[in-house]
């Protein structure tokens, strides 16, 4: 019972009326920051830091933590509705979330994103309570060799599962690595591919790249159609279906565990966790052939992962005093500002703060769910804006988002360059999310009545073969008994 004492005390601390209000304020600001471009949680926390000086430390940290995990909820909204990632951790949500919007299922995608975020966020807080000190030590054991192995594993998986052609995926992965070498060499300080410009000295930032590859390229592709055919379909429902819940359960569970573990690692965080979850779903999800074409798994898994990671990243900060990412560095600054030194002694020296902040996360996640579900109906009204007006608004969001990274026009130029280049490579079939013909055939087969009646083990092996032997797609199929409708579609 002794162990439960501080936890109960934490709940009592977090549920004081004033602290509930600060928690609410934090998560509302976080949601707004997540939705709006150009404002990230790190910048917002930096802006609000002086304002928290008058608060007591527990209230201050409760509010600032709310901004961070609240932004993970909000980040998915623009990814799903207009294919612009509100936060970099919502990048992969663009793939299936936006496809669902195109199919008139924006409400289901937004609802599932909020629910997955809630489940993962709450479960991760549970994990934070139970295994925080243990995982803190595990994170410290990760050295350069482990990180390099993790990176190689990630790249290999992305290339292998990324699209219809291994050669194209590998070429894109290597191009990405080559672009990452732009800027000052971190060891020797030598300038690489900067062409004498100041703007490239720090390398190419991810935000303009994402905004270009997703936002701008998408608007360009829509421009291929005449204005009267550009409008996105009106959403048919506001709530995920029963089947959506069934399909999303396992991805949410996997995303939560994966996100939590990756969030704990210094240098890791919500972005890596969401990408890792998407890659995992491409391998393990029941309907993996449909991923990239509007599958609920592609929204539920990554959204669960980025929230679990946001919570997990508090572990190294609270237990070791090591910030796992830039937002946690801002939190460290906030704690230091209030004269608190996070580290192994924090639990014993400031149990009210440690357990109070953790308990407030339960409250914050519940508040976020209550806030976000009714907002689904409001957000999807965006789709009713005529596309000739929506398109420049999307461009404007991308322009502001890119510019605000460093305050240089060069960032906007980078975004435009990646937008036009991304559009071109999409036309050439290099877009990892679109998958190509073979995958869509797999999807059709998995949806056909015959496929549904086959045994699950056969379905698994067949679906796996979709990935391993793309060449088979060109072989004429003359198997009898195929449904007439499916034959006609071919």
């Amino acid at each position, binding site marked *: 019972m002794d162990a439960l004492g501080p936890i109960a005390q934490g709940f009592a601390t977090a549920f004081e009326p004033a602290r509930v209000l600060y928690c609410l304020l934090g998560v509302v600001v976080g949601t707004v920051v997540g939705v*709006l471009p*150009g*404002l990230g949680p790190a910048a917002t926390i930096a*802006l609000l830091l002086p304002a928290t000086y008058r608060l007591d430390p527990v209230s201050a940290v409760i509010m600032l933590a709310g901004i961070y995990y609240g932004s993970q909820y909000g980040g998915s909204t623009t990814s799903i509705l207009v294919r612009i990632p509100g936060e970099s951790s919502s990048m992969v949500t663009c793939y299936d979330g936006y496809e669902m919007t195109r199919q008139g299922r924006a409400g289901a995608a937004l609802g599932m994103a909020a629910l997955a975020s809630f489940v993962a966020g709450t479960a991760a807080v549970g994990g934070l309570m139970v295994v925080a000190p243990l995982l803190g030590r595990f994170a410290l054991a990760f050295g350069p060799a482990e990180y390099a192995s993790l990176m190689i594993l990630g790249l290999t998986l992305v290339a292998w599962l990324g699209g219809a*052609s291994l*050669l*194209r995926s*590998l*070429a894109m992965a*290597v*191009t990405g*690595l*080559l672009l990452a*070498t732009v800027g000052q*060499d971190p*060891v*020797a300080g*030598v300038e*690489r*591919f900067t*062409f004498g410009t100041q703007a490239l000295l720090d390398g190419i930032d991810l935000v303009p790249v994402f905004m270009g590859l997703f936002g*701008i390229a998408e*608007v*360009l592709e829509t*421009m*291929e*159609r*005449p*204005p009267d055919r550009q409008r996105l379909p009106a959403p048919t429902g506001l709530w995920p279906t029963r089947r959506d819940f069934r399909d999303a359960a396992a991805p949410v569970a996997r995303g939560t565990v994966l996100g939590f573990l990756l969030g704990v690692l210094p240098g890791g965080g919500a972005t890596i966790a969401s990408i890792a979850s998407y890659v995992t779903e491409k391998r393990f999800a029941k309907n993996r052939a449909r991923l990239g074409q509007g599958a609920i798994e592609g929204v539920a898994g990554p959204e669960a992962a980025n929230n679990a990671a946001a919570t997990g990243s508090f572990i190294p900060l609270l237990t070791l005093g090591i910030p796992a990412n830039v937002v946690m560095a801002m939190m460290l600054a906030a704690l230091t500002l209030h004269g608190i030194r996070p580290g192994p002694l924090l639990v014993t020296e400031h149990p009210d703060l440690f357990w109070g902040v953790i308990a407030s996360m339960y409250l914050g996640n519940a508040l976020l769910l209550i806030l976000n579900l009714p907002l689904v109906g409001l957000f999807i009204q965006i789709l009713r804006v*005529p*596309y*000739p*007006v929506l*398109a*420049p*608004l999307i*461009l*404007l969001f991308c*322009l*502001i988002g890119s*510019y*605000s990274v460093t*305050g240089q*026009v060069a960032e*906007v*130029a980078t975004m*435009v360059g990646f*937008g*036009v280049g991304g559009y*071109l*490579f999409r*036309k*050439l*079939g*290099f877009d990892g999310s679109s998958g*190509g*013909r073979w995958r869509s055939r797999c999807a059709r087969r998995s949806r056909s009545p015959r496929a549904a009646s086959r045994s699950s083990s056969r379905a698994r092996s067949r679906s796996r073969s979709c990935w391993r032997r793309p060449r088979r797609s*060109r072989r004429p199929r003359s198997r009898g008994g195929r449904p007439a409708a499916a034959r006609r579609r071919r």
Partner: protein
Amino acid sequence: MTARRARADAVGGVLLLLLAAVAGLAGRALPFGAPGQPGAGFFPRALTLLLAALALALLIRGLARPAPDFTEPWRDPGARRRLLLMTGALVGYVAAVGTLGYLVTTAALFVVMVRGVGGRGWTHTLVVAAACSAGSWYLFGRLLRVTLPAGALLP
């Protein structure tokens, strides 16, 4: 479909070969270092070689198959016009925003997109352009204190 993608492979291969060539040229002076102690040029050069090999493989694969068209969406003159207008508007924005400032260039972007690309009437276009330009400037620049591009001549 197969043939379309084959041609796409060839074009993609050529583009990536060009990128590898640019990277090779721009990075030729970077110190390579030794195997035990890689220099700043080690990683870029290895990646350039790898990219060139992959691009070449894509090109060969593309050429080895029949090559009809993947440019179907661009055949419609209206689509070509819209795509070029939008690309031009974005490039123009980047070029002009440093001089003319956020308000004017953003309004101009809206005029091109709503009138030129979307084909809306002038009144509608001007109202939307003015409202969105000034509204976003006030919301982001003033209320939320986001850094917006400021021109040499105008805000």
